[in-house]
């Protein structure tokens, strides 16, 4: 047992931790939301992760994403796997550097207990939500997190028992309203908390 697992057993109890460790979580996107949400999930004991993102780390990502300067140019899923393993060496991570399409979305995520929608583009977000809602145990998505100020506006809306939406549904990334670390991390942390709450409520087992 790793040091982190041991510590979490102390915080949460063996039973709760066993439930967390059994859950298979997919992250659709490993950018601002996905890289940070993955980090929080690993720190909460989630250890069976599938990361899907076709992109590479760029300098422009370092203002908010869980990557380091020396990782620019690497595939995000490879860099994120490396970073997560530094937190918890005993993880099972599937790193898929693929673009999510209508043709592959079910194959990529359809077998998982929980999927976190952490994509950038509206169309891709909608594709993931419309395709997976009701097909996976729990879906957590995000919409509206750009800019700064009023972080309490980033709410968690429980649309139905297996679907949570984080964000204000209005703050799109646009000129003058960039994605910045604090609000992006509030949303990523709330996505992780929704997953954790769903599992600890006994829904994942």
């Amino acid at each position, binding site marked *: 047992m790793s040091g982190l697992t041991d510590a979490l057993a102390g915080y949460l109890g063996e039973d709760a931790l066993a439930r967390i460790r059994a859950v298979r979580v997919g992250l659709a*996107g490993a*950018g*601002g*939301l*996905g890289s940070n949400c993955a980090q929080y999930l690993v720190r909460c004991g989630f250890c069976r992760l599938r990361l899907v993102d076709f992109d590479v780390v760029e300098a422009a990502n370092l203002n908010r994403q869980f990557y380091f300067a020396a990782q620019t140019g690497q595939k995000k899923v490879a860099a994120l796997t490396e970073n997560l393993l530094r937190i918890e060496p005993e993880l099972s991570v599937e790193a898929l550097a693929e673009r999510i399409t209508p043709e592959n979305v079910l194959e990529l995520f359809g077998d998982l207990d929980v999927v976190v929608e*952490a*994509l*950038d*583009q*509206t*169309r891709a*977000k*909608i594709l993931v*939500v*419309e395709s997976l*809602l*009701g097909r996976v145990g729990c879906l957590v*998505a*995000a*919409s*509206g*997190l*750009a800019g700064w100020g009023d972080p309490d506006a980033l709410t968690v*809306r429980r*649309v*139905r028992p297996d679907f949570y*939406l984080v964000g204000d*549904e*209005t*703050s*799109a*990334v*646009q000129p003058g309203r960039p*994605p910045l670390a604090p609000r992006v991390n509030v949303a990523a942390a709330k996505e992780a908390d929704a997953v954790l709450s769903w599992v600890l409520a006994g829904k994942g087992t």
Partner: protein
Amino acid sequence: MQVTVNGKTEEMPEDTTVSRYLERRGASPESLVVELNGAVLARTGWPGRILRDGDRLEIVRFVQGG
């Protein structure tokens, strides 16, 4: 006729389709996911589905950024 939209009851004229309702709300349809009575309603079904008394509609708006 009463329809529940995002948890709030709204009075609606008879023969309101999902498309017509979304237009009236002023939301751009390509940014929305619509769920009717607990199931996703594909956008191809929006023009033909007339809302009925007691329907429960959930509308989620997606904007860019992640």
